[in-house]
């Protein structure tokens, strides 16, 4: 469903993504992991047709992402890094807009909107303007927008960050459910415990280069330990000035 061949993106002298090869099959949940600045968002942008690769090729739903961006956008749902919400629309209006734009019949849009608002506990804030929403509400709204048109592939950039535990569980269950129905999910996240629970495939990237790609069950150790070994080792620094006995 998603296929990358020698995918490379350079910004001047800086190489954000270098020679990435990747295959994600239909109905799989693929977690794309790496530290900030590793090239995750750049890869997602190339996969969603928002950024052209410097070299290489991305195919999503059988479409070349760079050559058919409009057709691709009709088939995918995206939760972007910056959420992509309009300050002057309410939570509910964002969902109605999505239905209208993706050609979902009006009655179906209303039904799906009601279901999504209920499932994501957004009913009480349905008439709140995005500018006045909490970050969690904004994220849930953008997530609901990605789901509403019933896409073939979901691209989710850090979906679990800044979300309360109950909503995170609901989102996790929803993602597992859509994957069972054949929707492919490609997500980036820093919450490894959540990734460990839902991902079928784990891909790790460091400084634009893929350092791991396997089925989730093939990891040689816990995801966290493997991540620290391959991607980034945490360095803990003592802050001597912290504590009641110090000035």
């Amino acid at each position, binding site marked *: 469903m998603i296929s990358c061949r020698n995918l490379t993106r350079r910004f001047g002298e800086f190489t954000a993504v270098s020679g990435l090869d990747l295959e994600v099959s239909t109905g799989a949940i693929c977690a794309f992991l790496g530290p900030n600045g590793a090239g995750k968002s750049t890869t997602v942008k190339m996969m*969603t047709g*928002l950024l052209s690769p410097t070299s290489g090729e991305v195919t999503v739903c059988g479409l070349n992402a760079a050559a058919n*961006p*409009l*057709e691709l*956008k*009709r088939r995918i749902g*995206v939760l*972007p890094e*910056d*959420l*992509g*919400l*309009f*300050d*002057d*629309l309410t939570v509910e*209006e*964002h969902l*109605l*807009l999505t239905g*209208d*734009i*993706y*050609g979902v019949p009006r009655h179906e849009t209303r039904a799906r909107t009601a279901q999504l608002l209920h499932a994501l506990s957004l009913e009480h804030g349905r008439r709140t*303007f*995005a500018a006045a929403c909490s970050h969690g509400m904004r994220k849930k709204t953008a997530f609901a927008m990605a789901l509403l048109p019933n896409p073939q592939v979901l691209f989710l950039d850090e979906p679990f960050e800044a979300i309360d535990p109950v909503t995170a569980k609901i989102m996790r269950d929803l993602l597992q459910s859509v994957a069972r129905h054949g929707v492919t999910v490609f997500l980036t996240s820093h919450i490894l415990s959540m990734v460990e629970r839902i991902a079928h495939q784990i891909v790790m990237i460091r400084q634009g280069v893929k350092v791991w790609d396997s089925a989730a069950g093939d990891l040689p150790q816990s995801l966290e330990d493997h991540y620290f070994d391959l991607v980034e080792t945490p360095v803990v620094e003592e802050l001597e000035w912290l504590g009641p006995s110090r000035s």
Partner: protein
Amino acid sequence: MARSFAILRALALAYRRDWTAFQSLAGNNFFLLTAFLLRQAGTFVYLIMGLVVLFPLSTDPLRKIPPSRLALWPLGRRERWILRLASPWINPLTWGLAALAMWGAGRIVTVGMWAAIAGLFAAAFLVSALPLPGGAGMWRRVPHFPGPLNQLVRKNLREILTTLDFYCALILSGAVLACRVFGPALPPEALMAMTVLVVAAMSSYAQCLFGLDGEGGLSRYRLLPVRGWRLLLAKDAAFLAVAIPLTLPLAVLPGIGAALVTLAIGHAPAAEHPRPQTRWRFSTGGGLGNGAIQLLALAMTAFAIFSTSTWFLAPALAAWALSLGWFGRKAERVLG
């Protein structure tokens, strides 16, 4: 005391930055038109602009601190009182009013005029300091539009309602309407001239149609499977939904023609160089050249429709449609 002064210093810095946003006026068509063409005759227009600007200038400076942050800071009762009493003096308008009261009332302006300005200032200050419960979003209720772009048009309409350009045009149009209802009959030429002024007041916004969408909005446009011309169409529909009703009490057909031409020319800077705009300020256009061409074209179109034939609406419509298609493609490239 030290804590209060630290907060006041930060507040003054934030306020000074906020005031620089009023420099947007220098790139506004309506301001330029008044400054260069109307000169002395433009006093009435300057008064309207002053009145419109007075409201955002009069807001409570303490609003710049999020209430949750203010509540968290370890400030005593006395320090909070100092903040409350000293913060209005961060606003230069407070000093201006005080100076006018001491030295100018009765000389530069009449006492009644001073009282009117001070009253408006106080009203805007109080409204911003004491937000009305549940009523703050009332003005955001906008009608629905037919078609799949409905929510985009509504959003764009709400954006227009947060620009001072609209309120300037509204006051001009309202003044003429009041004159027509309660005053002597106005000559058709005067109505035509006022139509040009009303559309000119909104013309700078047509040059920065994507200016209030923010990064999040632009990012969403990139994700939507919508052609660029349809995004522009949603912007134009909102603009016309405001401009046409405002010209209804004036000369409506020249107004429609002028609005279409305004959009046709405004598409170029709007699509090619989306300039971020600030809410509750005047819109800043894409440059003096663009503004001059836009003003000239809208005035000529309105005049042609008014003095010769309604058929001049047809070329205006054609120019708008061509511009929509052409710059729609450009917008797609720039946004995408």
